[in-house]
């Protein structure tokens, strides 16, 4: 009997071990690789191995040669604006769906389609629609007198990043809408009826009852979407390639450029560690402050 007891106590760890070991190997290798090579000068075009020890030079060069601060600012801006816009648009649509008028079921099934697209495909959709000569969306906006920059929205330094955010918002607002709608369904109607009896207005009920009850779901959605926006690469790649100039560079795109286009492995390694530190801080702050009380 005792044997069986210890066996059952160890079993969960044995079951977890394979996936944890595989994942640890898959993430510790890149992190260790980046840490070691961040102290070496290594350009892959000059040789298959690091060339010489360069101390902290790579960390200094990240700020001097690559547009690190611009990219950090863009990345955070994209994350905050995108998440904010998607949450509130999504909430609006979720409330529309929650009216349960005829047709909302079909609407819900079709609405998710943008979210199913590969981000590169979504990027192509809007590159086509925003093409300076012949893009339907640009043509329509010009038609109603909207001020369109002569290079188009993607070629203009002031609008390139916002356009990326807008396309991401188009793609992921349905996701917020569908999930928040599921959240609305899970709210106990009796609570609302009680508030109604007490004479609360619809506006008041939304802010004091609906929104607080949606908080656990909202916290989860905001976290994963913020991070996905923070990691934006595919859309940037297809829509603007970080341009014009460095106007729409993100941290992920910087890493791609230095690593897989310029082959500056040492420099990329240093940048990787800076990004890893930033991401860890964000995720841990989030888990600590907002997400702590969640039970699995």
């Amino acid at each position, binding site marked *: 009997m005792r044997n069986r007891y210890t066996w059952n106590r160890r079993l969960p760890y044995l079951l977890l071990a394979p996936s944890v070991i595989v994942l640890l190997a898959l993430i510790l290798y890149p992190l260790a690789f980046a840490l070691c090579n961040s102290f070496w000068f290594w350009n892959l075009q000059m040789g298959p191995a690091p060339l010489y020890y360069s101390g902290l030079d790579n960390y200094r060069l990240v700020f001097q040669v690559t547009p690190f601060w611009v990219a950090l600012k863009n990345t955070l801006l994209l994350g905050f604006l995108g998440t904010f816009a998607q949450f509130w648009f999504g909430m609006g649509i979720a409330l529309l769906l929650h*009216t349960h008028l005829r047709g909302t079921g079909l609407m819900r099934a079709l609405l998710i389609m943008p979210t*199913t*697209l590969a981000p590169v495909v979504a990027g192509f959709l809007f590159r086509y629609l925003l093409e300076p000569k012949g893009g339907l969306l640009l043509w329509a906006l010009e038609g109603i007198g909207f001020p369109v920059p002569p290079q188009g929205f993607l070629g203009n330094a002031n609008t390139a990043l916002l356009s990326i955010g807008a396309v991401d918002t*188009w793609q992921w607002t349905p996701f917020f809408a569908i*999930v928040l709608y599921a959240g609305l369904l899970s709210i106990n109607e009796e609570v609302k009826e009680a508030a109604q009896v007490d004479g609360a207005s619809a506006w008041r009920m939304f802010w004091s009852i609906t929104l607080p009850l949606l908080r656990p779901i909202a916290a*989860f959605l905001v976290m994963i979407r913020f991070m996905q926006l923070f990691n934006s690469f595919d859309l940037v790649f297809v829509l603007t390639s970080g341009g014009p100039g460095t106007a729409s560079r993100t941290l992920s795109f910087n890493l791609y450029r230095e690593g897989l286009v310029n082959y500056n492995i040492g420099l990329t390694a240093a940048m990787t560690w800076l990004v890893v530190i930033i991401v860890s801080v964000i995720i841990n702050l989030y888990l600590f402050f907002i997400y702590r009380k969640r039970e699995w």
Partner: protein
Amino acid sequence: MQRRHKVIIYALMALVMIFFLGPILWFILLAFRHPSEAYTLPPQLFFEPYLGNFGDTFVDPGNNAPQLVSSVIVSTGATLLSLPFALASAYALSRFAMRGKDFIMNWYISLLIAPPIVFVIPYFILMSRIGWAGSYQAMIVTLQTLAIPFSVWLLKSFMDEVPLDLEEAAWVDGANRIAAFFRIIIPLALPGIIVTSMFTFVFSWNNVIFPLALSKQSTTTLPVGTISFFASSGVYWGHIAATAVVAMLPPMIIFLLLGRYVVRGLTFGAVKG
């Protein structure tokens, strides 16, 4: 509800649908337009459908047909490889009280939301060192950084719903935990396992960073193939649209099939829907 309110709500719903589906439909139409008509303005909603874009890309010369095959191989491979790892972990997390469970769940999700590009560049070097450069297995193995954490989360949510009583009954009958797992959990969680696999397939299918860095021309996947049109001479929208339409179909069909599981899949099982 008042009639006036209803009218307003329907008008808003129509606007929402046009806004979110219009761009997709317009792009699908592009795939059936003759290249000379890609930029015709004002827009032509009705035109002679032209199948040449699909012919050029998938039949003759058909450069994108092998990419379709690669996409199927990589996505299926990544899904199948993740399953045994994810099943074991999800079962452990669903059925045992253990210390550090929250930590492990959070650890999985932090992998899921970490920037993949951070891992990709070292993998790129590693794969050429071990002779896997450009191979399918390079993509399939590295995609596990996303596929395993995702499947663990989603599978756990499905296993949580299999009643404990049934398993306990099997133990009373003398089955050990492993036997009960195969006889009770696997069959009862089978719909959940299938749903999870389909979502993992879609996420691998839509992934671009890993194939972009780790594939070679003969193993690259369809979404990456779409990108390569940009690099070559001029932008040929008909071809881009034709390949992109083929690339978008499997995820769309799977999402329509999965219907009521969509919320759960997209939130990794955290919201039941």
